[in-house]
């Protein structure tokens, strides 16, 4: 079992996303690829052990389309 204490989730802004695929390469644990190369992100909270990597992945998106949101506040 993976420890999950956060309520942080990944979200894609589908308007900004241009399917560069960086996130799919960096975080395959939580991000899959759809038939056209766009990311399909897990709807589960990001496990603690992946939080740091998730943050780096968000920063690496060339179009700033990947977001971390806190579902309890709706903030991002």
């Amino acid at each position: 079992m993976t420890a999950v204490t956060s309520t942080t989730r990944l979200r894609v802004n589908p308007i900004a996303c241009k399917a560069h695929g960086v996130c799919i390469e960096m975080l395959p644990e939580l991000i899959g690829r759809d038939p056209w190369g766009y990311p399909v992100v897990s709807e589960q909270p990001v496990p603690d052990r992946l939080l740091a990597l998730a943050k780096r992945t968000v920063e690496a998106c060339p179009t700033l389309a990947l977001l971390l949101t806190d579902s309890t506040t709706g903030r991002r």
Partner: protein
Amino acid sequence: MKQANSTRWDPEAARQYGAGSGSGADAAASQATGSDRRLLGGPADLAGHLRWHGPLPDHDGATILDTVERSGLTGRGGAAFPTGRKMRAVADASRARRSARQRGTVLVANGCEGEPASAKDRTLLTRAPHLVLDGITAAALAVGAERVHLCLHEDDDAIIRAVQRALDERQSARVPTADVQITRAPARYVASEETSLIQLIDGGPALPRFTPPRPFERGVDGRPTLVDNVETLAHIALIARHGHAWFRATGTPNAPGTALVTVTGAVSRPGVYEIALGITGAELLATAGGTTQPVQAVLAGGYFGAWLPEQRFHSARITAPDLLAAGAAMGAGIFVALPGESCALAETARVARYLAEQSAGQCGPCINGLPALAQALEALAARGDRRAPEYIKNLTPYVAGRGACRHPDGATRLIASALAVFAADVRTHLHRGPCAGARRAPILPLPAATVGAY
């Protein structure tokens, strides 16, 4: 009979759908008798409107908001969200902003009828523009709106003229009215989405925007914005006059009031009707004069809705929660009765192609997914393509819920419902090729080909 005193015949909408005009006179004779306080009951001109409905009472904003909340009114644009709750959020923000010396909130009245099978907003705006303007005025007061926009399709001169005439009448007669700016929106499907209208008003393209923030948090000019359908606002005009108990006296406890619906397809008198929410599907079809031939299914909720087999539709209650439970939707009150001889797969494929073409073209899954789904459905309807059902089933999860707006969700729901409800037709097409119905004239209305940018 519940529907007998709640119906309205609308020859204009009927003509739009190519119905015979001969039934207009007797239909008019059977129209609303027991009700004088409903949306389509009164005259269109100001004097007649005031005679029929009386003036808008001089309530303060808090009273209007409280009455709307208690009335249980839900949005009539398609989402059926509780109107009072949305208004409360904007009103609260308005108070907070005023004490922080920030500029006031914004009200956007959505009169852009994007659904091709709907004519109810157009009917309301041309037949009862003063009710809409009363509702706008009351809602603007309730949420402390400083700016008010009424969004209308730019190519619909009749509506723009009717509203302008009504505004002029009110000005000459000094009838208290919010300072309404008419905003002309392109007649594209996704342009009437609420975030599209906000971007348009802010000087951008009429395209959906990524949410959150929702408009009631940050809308026009970054201010909290109430976006309501024009029918919803017209109900507010009546609720402000007659109170929440009056509103709840018709309809059901969880779907109170009346609603405007557009009934087309294989019915004797297609058109726009005002119904008490909670009547059955059978009563709804009877309201439109009954069916003209055997009907296999009814599309409930328009192109964001779903097919229901005829028997299931007959017993379904016409409310948003009941239709949702039945697997369809109330949407903007659109119902199309599909004749037994029509090919449901070909009909749905045609609409699926239209919806694919209406994508705003902003989000990858919608850009790529909708044409792929439409093509597969076309191949199934036209050639009995064996791979199509499986392909559609596998592709749908990659399209539904993956756009910035709900356009792909609606399209996928419609396609999925066609495959489920018409499963026997799918088998026939796979084994024997296209049916004879595929060559019949289409029933589901689509606008003439629209070309142009946003």
